[in-house]
């Protein structure tokens, strides 16, 4: 068991290293001359050359990657061209905002998806099941950002229950989190249903029932606990989707998260910021996936990967 988990965590290292290579390479070949980006358009050839040497941009690809890697390990992600501040500081400001939306979104996902999935599984092939499953079909198809705009129109413009946009109070977070949580709940509810159906077939559920336990206890205490195991892994995988989806929501609701920072920086060609944000986001998603996988093995001792 411990061996498997250690192995899994060690496997993370080559993945992360390869990820830095991909991200570095993407921006190494990005169009535009990085030297003139730093120096501005009107520089003498001498100054141009000295800047090129100063930032090591005259070095070959491998050397530049090595320097990049070294500074990343030291926690230095470069300097923003636009704001002339360390990229890592900008990310530290913006990342928690995105995480707030993501966590609240996950919470909403669970609150909706678990009861819906369990109900659909317990009342399989009844009207309730069909209703829940048609709901999830539509939910999976709804574009998250469009759903966010619909919520904004009804609950902020028409009903005025929530502020239209901005950031500061919990009320500002409700609509974007709901947009991401509800669309994510659709796919999660389907998983909960099929996982639950699998568990309800098991012998121990029948035993629990024949012991004369209340149906509620059987379902929530015995079956659901085990049905949730594969859902944990799924949630790890959904993190990337949640962050990808929150990019557009941050734009719609004017929330200063990392997605908004990234889009603004792409449009302003502030590559060090995009590169830094990309590194932080993808590495946290990769780590989350692998941790979810390891957690899966801890919770379910039957699982042995070779």
């Amino acid at each position: 068991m411990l061996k498997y988990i250690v192995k899994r965590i060690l496997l993370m290292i080559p993945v992360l290293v390869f990820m830095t290579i991909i991200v570095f390479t993407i921006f190494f070949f990005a169009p535009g001359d990085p030297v003139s980006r730093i120096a501005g358009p009107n520089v003498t050839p001498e100054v141009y050359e000295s800047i090129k040497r100063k930032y090591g941009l005259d070095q070959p690809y491998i050397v530049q990657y090595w320097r990049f890697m070294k500074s990343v390990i030291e926690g230095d992600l470069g300097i923003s061209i636009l704001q002339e501040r360390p990229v890592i500081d900008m990310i530290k400001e913006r990342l928690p905002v995105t995480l707030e939306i993501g966590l609240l979104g996950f919470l909403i996902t669970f609150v909706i998806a678990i009861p819906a999935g369990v109900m659909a599984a317990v009342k399989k092939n009844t009207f309730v099941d069909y209703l829940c499953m048609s709901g999830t079909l539509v939910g999976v198809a709804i574009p998250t950002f469009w759903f966010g705009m619909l919520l904004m129109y009804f609950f902020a413009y028409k009903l005025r229950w929530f502020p239209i946009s901005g950031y500061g109070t919990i009320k500002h977070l409700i609509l974007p989190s709901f947009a991401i949580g509800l669309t994510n709940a659709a796919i999660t509810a389907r998983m909960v249903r099929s996982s639950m159906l699998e568990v309800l077939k098991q012998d121990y559920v029948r035993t629990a029932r024949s012991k004369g336990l209340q149906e509620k206890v059987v379902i929530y205490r015995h079956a659901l606990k085990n049905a949730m195991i594969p859902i944990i892994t799924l949630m790890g995988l959904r993190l990337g989707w949640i962050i990808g989806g929150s990019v557009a929501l941050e734009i719609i609701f004017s929330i200063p998260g990392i997605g908004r920072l990234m889009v603004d920086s792409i449009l302003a060609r502030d590559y060090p910021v995009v590169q830094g944000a990309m590194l932080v986001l993808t590495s946290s998603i990769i780590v989350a996936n692998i941790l979810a996988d390891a957690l899966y093995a801890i919770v379910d001792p039957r699982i042995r990967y070779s």
Partner: protein
Amino acid sequence: MITPGSRNGGVYVDKEWVKQQLSEYVEEKEEKRPVVEFLTKLFKHKGAVFGAIIIFLFVFTAVFAPWLAPYEYDKPDSSAILQPSSAEHLFGTDEFGRDIFSRIVYGSRISLKVALVAVGISLVAGTVLGALAGYYGGIVDYIISSITDIAWAFPTTLLAIAFIAALGTGIQNVIIAIALASWAGYCRVVRGQFLSLRERESIQAARILGMSDARIIFGHMLPNALAPVIVMATLELPKAIVIEASLSFLGLGAQPPTPSWGVILDSGKGLIGQAPWISFFPGLMIMLVVLGFNLFGDALRDVLDPNS
């Protein structure tokens, strides 16, 4: 097996007989399911019928856009600014007085083009890589599957955004970005299929018969591995449509005045309080098209690939 025949190192082997036995085996394994039976099974699903209708309408709209659109998609009309839905303007008009319905009709062309080309590229690239990894195994497999696992770990939308950051905006780059971000799935599926197919007697027989690698891969293994790939592609098409719309919505994809559904959604973003119809209808179209492909793809999976 050993019958009187050609003398070969002291053992009598009738090569013709072996060949005949083996090739019968190859043909037996390659029986094709009749098309009719397949279609009957497929359209027993209500979802498949509904999905197929939506997909047909979507493709029909894209192909016949100039005949279906009542107005030109980029023609401003100062007398009809920000009008809600009416008989004249079915989906209303935007801040330049352009007809939203006509823009959406033309926008379907962009969605369809991006989805088909991006999915086509990633499908071919992923399938070829997966086939090479699964067929040759060893070091080839190790290299390809390591890269695939890592590409698989990246979230698609973020990876597409990163490629756009490097390539620049525009439809062409959106297609490239989506293709680069989504080939890994096909590679994994095809590799898995090839690993199990490789052990089949029919493939072993084809090898013994001395068929070339290319003929075994493309003639015998690929047709047998294609079902899950087709299912996957059907379910990847709507994802490509959504990613294109999201990127265009963020200003990273198609640029105005191109009538991409994402661009129309974006143009209604600031006007959502006054003119919600600008953003409502393109989003609704995306939802319907995605629903159609998902329904059809799910039914296709039930029929083609019942094990998954």
